[in-house]
């Protein structure tokens, strides 16, 4: 097929049925995103991948590519909106980058750097989100959760376990664990599950390997997240799994 559309003025080929995001990723072009992952069905919730098509806003991970489309991606207008979205995510949860084990491997942090986010800007919500350290091999630190449902999708669609789900509504939305006690230890979750390696932020952390890779040598210390598009995203290893 030789269908193509324009992404920031560059010709991007696509095959029918591909989304704008999929086609861009296949061509090695970076559209900022957090909840999208090449191996899973699109979720369309973080809205970081919002682009403009023919002057209208669209979610690039859910909108189908069409021949001749003119897609705006890395414009100042869109990146400014993305900065605001990132700030909203930062103040909604409790993100203490300097003390977070995921620092340097975190897609939220790396995307914030990429978008030039310098402060959280808004007043912090400081939600009360206790951690779950019950599992022998994995720690759940809900403070960082951005509700992307990648773990929900991985556990359901790949691991076949349904260990995670989102509960609640609005800002009370939160990740829950599928057991009577609500504790991860009381599920059949294993550190080898796909869901254990898919979190783009620092919620699902493997125990006893913390800081094995020193800060400064981590995924996004070596190259910005925008450069990662292509290698990781095409190969299916995905963001956040390098660490």
């Amino acid at each position: 097929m030789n269908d193509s559309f324009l992404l920031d003025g560059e010709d991007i080929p696509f095959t029918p049925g591909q989304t704008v995001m999929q086609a861009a990723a296949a061509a090695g072009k970076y559209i900022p995103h957090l909840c999208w992952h090449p191996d899973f069905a699109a979720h369309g919730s973080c809205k970081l991948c919002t682009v403009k098509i023919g002057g209208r806003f669209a979610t690039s991970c859910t909108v189908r590519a069409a021949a001749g489309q003119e897609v705006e991606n890395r414009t100042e207008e869109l990146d400014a909106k993305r900065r605001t979205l990132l700030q909203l995510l930062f103040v909604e949860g409790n993100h203490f980058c300097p003390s977070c084990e995921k620092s340097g491997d975190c897609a939220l942090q790396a995307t914030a750097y990429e978008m030039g986010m310098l402060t959280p800007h808004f007043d912090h919500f400081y939600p009360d989100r206790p951690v779950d350290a019950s599992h022998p091999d994995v720690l759940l630190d809900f403070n960082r959760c951005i509700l992307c449902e990648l773990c929900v999708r991985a556990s359901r669609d790949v691991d076949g376990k349904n260990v995670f789900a989102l509960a609640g509504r609005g800002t009370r939305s939160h990740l829950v664990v599928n057991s009577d006690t609500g504790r991860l230890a009381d599920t059949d979750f294993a550190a080898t599950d796909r869901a254990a390696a898919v979190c783009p932020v620092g919620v699902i952390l493997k125990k006893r390997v913390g800081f094995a890779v020193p800060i400064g040598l981590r995924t996004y210390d070596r190259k910005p997240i925008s450069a990662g598009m292509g290698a990781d995203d095409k190969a299916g290893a995905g963001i956040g799994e390098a660490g």
Partner: protein
Amino acid sequence: MATAELEDILERHRRDPLQLLQILIELQARDGWLAPATLGALADALGMPRARVESTASFYSFLHTRPAGEYRILFSDNITDRMLGNQALMQALCDKLWLQPGKVSEDGLVSVATTSCTGMCDQGPALLANGRTVTRLTPERIDEMAHLIRRRVPVGDWPPEWFHVEDNIRRRDVLLDHGLAPGAALAAALERGPTGLLSEIERSALRGRGGAGFGSDIKWRSCRDAWGDAHYVICNADEGEPGTFKDRVLLSSYFDLVVDGMCIAGMAIGANKGFIYLRGEYRYLLDRLETRLAQRREQGLLGRNILGRGFTFDIEIHLGAGAYICGEESALIESLEGKPGKPRIRPPFPVTNGYRGQPTTVNNVETLALAALIAVRGGEWFRAIGTPASTGTKLLSVSGDVARPGIYEFPFGVSVTEVLEAAGARDTQAVTSAGAAGHCLAADEFGRRIAFEDVATGGSIMVFDASRDMFEVARNFAHFFAHESCGFCTPCRVGTAVNARLLDKLAADHGSPYDLDEIAKMHRLMQGASHCGLGNTATIAIDDMLAKFRPAFERRLHSPDYEPAFDLDAALSQARRMTGRDDPGAHLGDNHEALAEARPHAQGAHSSADPVSAKDLQP
């Protein structure tokens, strides 16, 4: 709960996981809340992950996963309820019951809280007592209610007049004066056949009455043409827009016309099954509606072989459980399938992939009733009413500062002024033209016309006279959307919460012009970036109010410079309690200036205060 009881409920719902929400509603009606063991047992019985049961149970406002008291009192908290004094009444009830709002009494007897608009704006203030609607609250009723609760009198034995709901129809036109016998419209439609009927609907130029105004003939034709194992008709009776109550009246007093309309839609699209998604706030209508459906089955007006013409169509009523978002059609379908009401990714649209993934048409209650009229009187007749782009009449729910709140049926094209005059509005400052989610008009715009091409509306008209503080209207709306955002997408979930906080900051005397700019910034972000109509419309009214009634906001500004939301002195209150101190030295504020004078470098302390310190003080 006894296992036999659970079995009985499960059997009636065919052990279908898609019935989860209906099962949860029934379980809660029996137990008063949904205990962890209940959720676990249900998950096992339905063969679904417990976490998914929890997802649904924790999404809906009227489902409680913690004990909420034998008596659960929810005050409707629309701005119109507030204008009628609901806050004082709620405080009075709490005082009499020795309660804090939002908390359950220590003996587990009662809880008192607020809920979004219950659709009784024409006869408020209103509340829900264990899900039952109580209207026209007065201090006397509140007094007596406290007595009844303390004496543990069941809600069913409370004075019957408390539960009386008036129609308050103030102006009738072709719909409210239809004069058709039950089934007459259906007979006319069967006579025309699907093709003939669809032509009449096309000729009528009927557009959806929920507010978006999508062409009904296009919706029905695309649904009919979509391939599927089954087709479905859904009547959207999740009338949640603050200030709307027209569907309540249609369901109460024009139900046969609505059912005729659903059957007609079923015939047109080739469906044998329909659902009415009835908002939980209208639970009081359920038994009456079920009874009428049963009668129609006996009369050959529903079910198998309708009117002896070989057409089969039946209707099931599903209840909502307190979620405004379920008015959005794809969220409604998710809810109908027992899931949290989060809007789907579209396309595909419901007309091709709706309920159970099958072609589904979702229509507003009023649209279906009008389709029934068109089946009898024809498209040309309908098209002659209203304006060329907005044919027919529109039901308007008028409330707020008017002498005669209620339902007004006007042909499209009526001016806002005419509506205000009919309702007896005086000294009107502002009108919200489509509830909390639409534009807010100022006096110089009252000459505009109610029509899709001018002032588009689902029918919620709230009127504010010159005595009202439009800032408080905006703040009420902001909190409404923060409460009702489903939480799926970032801009709406966090943006609505930020907006509510910004307006609270202004209300608490901490505002500056900076905050007004921030509210405008949220508006620009949420419009366009949000996943569905809720986020895309949540800031329209507030943005209008900010532009048109700016003095109401500027009055609230504390300083022309930046002001933090954080109050350093208030944050010290806990430390003062812990140390037992309350002397001037333990306070900032007035003392703060003296301190700053003594230590010139400390001047920045107030504005640069890091909110982290507030958290550090917590035990």
